């Protein structure tokens, strides 16, 4: 019980700070919006069936915008050495990981929720479907799970903005591929039987990333 109370306290702190500044959310939202505009203009010129590229565009936008959010979220912990303040608390370091991971998941999910209607309008395609929302949630969970761990590693390096994507993108490739495959299948109206392997693959990677990140967080934060 104490574990979850402390996790909620860390999320509460992140949400209160974000509501005051809107730094993480605004940077992710504006960046995602710009990506959609750029993709839209590019495809208008070259691609005949825009609907076919939507799954890829959707996930590239979410991953790029999410990376920006992860960077900002951990950078805020480094200001005034606040991460040290958290590490000094009498709790397992995994508690901090869960708090930060769930906070990141909330911020990225809100940005995605706001982007979906814009995507639907720009690409003239209904993207607000329960199966697609589940896929986005699972894909984002895997991204936030490993992204929170790697952004904690990257934040201590000099070139942290560059370091995070270099570390993160190769590792989250299985999550992105399965999320794109699922999204494509859902938009094409394929039966669940044919999508089930990708769903299992995505859930499996979410669990693996979550467990490994939780177990290794202590080694990452303690020098």
């Amino acid at each position, binding site marked *: 019980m104490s574990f979850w*109370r402390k996790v909620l306290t860390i999320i509460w*702190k992140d949400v*209160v700070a974000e509501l005051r500044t809107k730094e993480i959310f605004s940077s992710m939202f504006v960046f995602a919006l710009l990506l959609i505009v750029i993709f839209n203009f590019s495809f208008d010129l070259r691609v005949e069936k825009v609907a076919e590229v939507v799954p890829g565009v959707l996930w590239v936008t979410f991953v790029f915008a999410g990376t920006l959010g992860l960077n900002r979220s951990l950078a805020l912990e480094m200001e005034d050495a606040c991460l040290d303040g958290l590490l000094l608390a*009498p709790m397992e370091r995994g508690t901090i990981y869960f708090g930060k991971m769930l906070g990141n998941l909330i911020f990225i999910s809100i940005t995605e929720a706001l982007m979906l209607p814009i995507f639907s309008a720009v690409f003239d395609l209904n993207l607000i479907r329960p199966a697609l929302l589940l896929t986005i949630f699972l894909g984002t969970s895997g991204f936030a799970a490993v992204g929170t761990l790697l952004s904690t590693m990257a934040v201590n390096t000099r070139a942290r903005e560059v370091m995070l994507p270099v570390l993160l993108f190769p590792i989250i490739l299985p999550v992105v591929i399965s999320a794109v495959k699922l999204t494509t299948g859902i938009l094409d109206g394929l039966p669940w039987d044919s999508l089930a392997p990708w769903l299992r693959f995505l859930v499996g990677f979410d669990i693996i990333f979550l467990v490994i990140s939780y177990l290794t967080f202590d080694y990452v934060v303690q020098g």
Partner: protein
Amino acid sequence: MIQIQGLVKSFGHTYALQGVDLEVAEGEFLTIVGPNGAGKTTLLRILATLLKPTSGLVRIAGLDMASGGTEIRRRIGFVSHRPLVYSNLTVEENLYFYGRIYDVHPLGERVDMLLNLVGLEGRRHSPARTLSRGMQQRLSLARAVIHEPSLMLLDEPYTGLDQQATKMLRRLLQTINPESRTVVMTTHNLERGLELCDRLAILSRGRIVHQSEKAPLTLTELQEIYWQCVEEKTD
């Protein structure tokens, strides 16, 4: 309260601590002085469980650092030259946040008492970023003692403070050091280091090169010993 034997910490090929042996009794105020790069911050960060030692034994309140990290952290209050408070949260929110993380009960009364103690009652709803450097350090001190730790670790707490803020912090440090509370403070300022402590150690190039009781020492004598120790090590 603290037992350190043969403590070594290296970062790659660079040795920050090269076999530190030190004991601090319960209720004692130990000041560790030394030049920049002597290893003072590394030593305090190891005691605060923020860094893992490369080798050596560290025990706090009888607990081994390797296995009792969480229990050790419950007993520690840490103040550094950086405030460790969230600039976008208010003064009150910062204390409530740390109080909840440390399971402090009843939290409201404790926060009110600490805000009065550090003189920030009137600024309780101000975001921490709007506070002066001295006020932020006072907030940092309130944060560090919110769970009533039995061991205070102070890493260069006077850095960046003006005369008035220094005077106030010194008064606060006196009030947070009742007989039961052990304090270890690092500083490179000999005068500040000497005035509050019971015992003083000099750290140079990762080794304790001198230890003595404060009682017979004057500032001039300390300066002589300090320069002798530091220059010997540099040579």
